[in-house]
């Protein structure tokens, strides 16, 4: 045999760490999910405590399940499979440790800052700038560790799972950096450098691709490794998996704008997003079929083995949510579904079914191998499977019907041509039974999670005193490797068909990575540049002026409390929208909105034209205790806004940051606190004169009222009357 065999060991200790992190954060993230589901059914559970209110906990839930649970699950599988697919130990144990602890630190920081109200107000990119920098650093550490491992591999060919990992690592870095570019206005406060339409465009370019390259491609990589492992046979078609890979990379990156149909985004952009989304049907279903057909001839094993059961449901859920996604991206379907619970049901099919079940299947397979013992209870795993499956079914059917119900009620007209349900609250109350069913479904899923943890714990308890670390022997890759293939065929076409070029890519990680990056960047630039640089896409409106300093402070409170999680600020040009909320929103209205606050879900009504609809006192009473105004309201109260002092002196820093972003602030550049105080006095007087509490002039609530009363008024104001300078 080869005399130059090298000896090495796989590093499984790091995999065990990531495995535990996956479980622990999954349990926490899902528990928070259950709590916020309960808060929608029983608003009293907001408890009038700032850090327990829905608007602050909802981002915590999404961040925890995406970046903590799914993220750690990806790292668990990637660290296990990469070493074995490359026949080498990870590049550096130290970098592995920095990656692990760095990532957990980020999660802890997220869990602290989000409930405290520090947020950038961009979905799944809520974390503030110091944490964003930390994420970038830790991600680079992971990338160095991963690419270093590729470099010292002992396999020539890179297995397709690794391609998916490479694409994920490269793309997530690009997405994260460009969407989070912002100007700091304090240690935990920043403003997006993009405004309005452009910010929305960047956000959903990021948001959709976060789904693609954080929840889809990494997990497809895991599927292509762990499914053959569990089934003990190779993937059905390796060729299909390669095609799956390239089509996903080429198409996904374009799909983001389908989140912005009928908004102020130019129509060509959302049409482009829609077309690419529909094309995604092909690779997604190709991938699903590839996964399911791998089990052909092994269905008997599926009956006996809970791991394969988890995989079958995971792959089916992948197929269902990737069928549904393109369907929802079609403009007319989207008109019905957007802003409703339908989208919530859609993402939970994907997250609970695809990501959750793939992670569970993988960990049940890994646990006995990593802890070098038998799984504590096969029966308990089986029970987990059934509980979680029924949990998903209960959850999604309830929330699908909630989405459809609300979407249909919003657009319903009666025989006289008026909105059939003009009171928004009526469309909320109709959802209550569905919200309770969701609580039931979520509880089942969470119960399964607890069984999962107990099973893992008992398995871990029966581990050997010391883990065996078998020594592996393999030959190094020779540097003088030469492509020895069949004789070079004559004729360009024949040579091309031999496809040496693609083979060469596959074997050169650097070239390959560059190719992926090029595909992603080219697509992004082609889509983004026109929105940013062609003026006709965002016509300016002369009467739109920057927010006053006090309104700006109020806007930051709106952001702090997470109001955008339940209220949109984007009226679509559809008759039932304009009848309900007023004049539709125009791109030019948002040119000073750093960040944009269009929102993606209407748990409450749209606020784009809220300004001037109600007296100041109405807002004070409504914010303090919404049920005083609307007895059936499910909005939490914000009584602390009536007692918290407004930080007037801090407003200057906010204005300064806005000026850096090019917002024309005029006098406020030097005099923001005084201007804010003057406006606050006027509002406090108007509240008092309407019979409300006196001396609110230095409280947060006046800033909030100032902001809410400004919303959507500029477009109808005469251009000469400058709102910016108004007292």
């Amino acid at each position, binding site marked *: 045999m080869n005399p130059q065999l090298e000896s090495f060991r796989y590093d499984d200790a790091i995999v065990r760490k990531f495995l535990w992190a996956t479980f622990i954060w999954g349990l926490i993230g899902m528990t928070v999910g259950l709590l916020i589901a309960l808060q929608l059914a029983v608003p009293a559970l907001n408890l009038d405590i700032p850090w327990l209110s829905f608007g602050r906990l909802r981002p915590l839930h999404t961040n925890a399940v995406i970046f903590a649970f799914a993220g750690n699950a990806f790292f668990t599988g990637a660290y296990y499979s990469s070493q074995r697919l490359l026949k080498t130990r990870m590049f550096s144990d130290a970098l592995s440790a920095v990656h692990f602890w760095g990532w957990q630190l980020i999660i802890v920081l997220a869990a602290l800052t989000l409930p405290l109200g520090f947020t950038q107000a961009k979905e799944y990119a809520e974390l503030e700038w110091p944490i964003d920098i930390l994420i970038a650093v830790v991600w680079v550490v992971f990338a160095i560790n991963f690419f270093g491992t590729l470099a010292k591999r002992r396999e020539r060919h890179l297995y397709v799972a690794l391609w998916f990992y490479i694409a994920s690592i490269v793309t997530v870095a690009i997405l994260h950096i460009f969407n989070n570019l912002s100007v700091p206005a304090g240690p935990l406060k920043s403003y997006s450098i993009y405004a309005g339409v452009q910010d929305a465009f960047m956000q959903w370019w990021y948001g959709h691709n976060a789904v693609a390259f954080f929840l889809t491609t990494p997990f497809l990589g895991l599927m292509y490794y762990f499914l053959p*492992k569990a089934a003990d046979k190779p*993937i059905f078609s390796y060729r299909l998996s390669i095609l799956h890979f390239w089509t996903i990379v080429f198409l996904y990156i374009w799909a983001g704008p389908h989140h912005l149909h009928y908004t102020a985004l130019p129509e060509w952009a959302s049409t482009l997003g829609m077309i690419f989304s529909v094309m995604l049907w092909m690779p997604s279903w190709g991938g699903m079929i590839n996964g399911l057909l791998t089990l052909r001839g092994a269905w008997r094993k599926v009956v006996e083995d809970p791991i394969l059961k988890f995989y079958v449901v995971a792959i089916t859920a992948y197929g269902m949510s990737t069928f549904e996604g393109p369907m929802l991206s079609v403009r007319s379907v989207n008109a019905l579904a957007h802003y409703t619970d339908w989208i919530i049901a859609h993402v939970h099919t994907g997250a609970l079914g695809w990501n959750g079940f793939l992670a569970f299947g993988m960990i049940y397979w890994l646990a006995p191998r990593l802890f070098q013992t038998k799984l504590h209870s096969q029966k308990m795993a089986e029970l987990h499977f059934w509980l979680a499956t029924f949990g998903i079914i209960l959850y999604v059917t309830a929330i699908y019907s909630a989405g459809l119900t609300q979407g249909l009620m919003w657009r319903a007209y009666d025989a006289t041509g008026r909105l059939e349900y003009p009171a928004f609250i009526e469309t909320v109350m109709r959802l209550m039974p569905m919200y309770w069913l969701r609580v039931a479904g979520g509880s089942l899923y969470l119960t399964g999670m607890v069984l999962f943890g107990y099973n893992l714990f008992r398995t871990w308890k029966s581990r050997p005193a010391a883990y065996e670390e078998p020594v592996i022997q*393999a030959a190094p890759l020779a540097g003088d490797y030469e492509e020895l293939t069949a004789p070079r065929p004559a004729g360009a076409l024949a040579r091309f068909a031999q496809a040496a070029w693609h083979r060469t890519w596959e074997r050169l990680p650097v070239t390959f990575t560059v190719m992926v990056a090029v595909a992603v960047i080219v697509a992004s630039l082609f889509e983004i540049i026109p929105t940013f640089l062609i003026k006709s896409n965002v016509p300016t409106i002369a009467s739109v002026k920057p927010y006053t300093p006090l309104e700006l402070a109020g806007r930051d409170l709106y952001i702090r409390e997470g109001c955008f999680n339940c209220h949109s600020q984007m009226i679509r040009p559809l008759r039932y929208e304009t009848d309900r909320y007023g004049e539709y929103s125009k791109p030019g209205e948002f040119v000073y909105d750093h960040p944009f606050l269009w929102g993606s879900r209407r748990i409450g009504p749209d606020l784009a034209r809220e300004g001037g609809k109600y007296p100041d006192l109405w807002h004070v009473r409504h914010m303090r205790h919404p049920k005083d105004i609307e007895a059936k309201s499910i909005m939490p109260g914000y009584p602390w806004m009536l007692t918290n002092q407004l930080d007037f002196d801090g407003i200057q820093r906010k204005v300064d940051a806005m000026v850096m972003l090019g917002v024309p602030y005029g006098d406020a550049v030097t005099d923001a606190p005084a201007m804010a105080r003057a406006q606050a006095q006027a509002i406090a007087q108007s509240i008092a004169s309407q019979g409300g509490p006196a001396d609110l002039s230095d409280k947060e609530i006046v800033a909030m009222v100032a902001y809410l009363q400004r919303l959507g008024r500029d477009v109808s104001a005469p251009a000469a009357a400058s709102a910016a300078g108004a007292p």
Partner: protein
Amino acid sequence: MRLSDIMSHAGLSTYAEVALVIFMIAFLLIAVGVFAPSRKREFDEASRMPLDDVHPQSPRQSRGDAS
């Protein structure tokens, strides 16, 4: 004159379609390459890679002398 003025007049709005064509061509090239009959053996080999934790499946020798 700002960058946005230049870009506005550069007529870039058709670039999305241009990119679509470029991507379509890239896709066709890859599809042809992937389904080239000469690669069947190589892919069969690659598809077995996850199943063996110990022995490299596509080691330093080329496929010609590995067997």
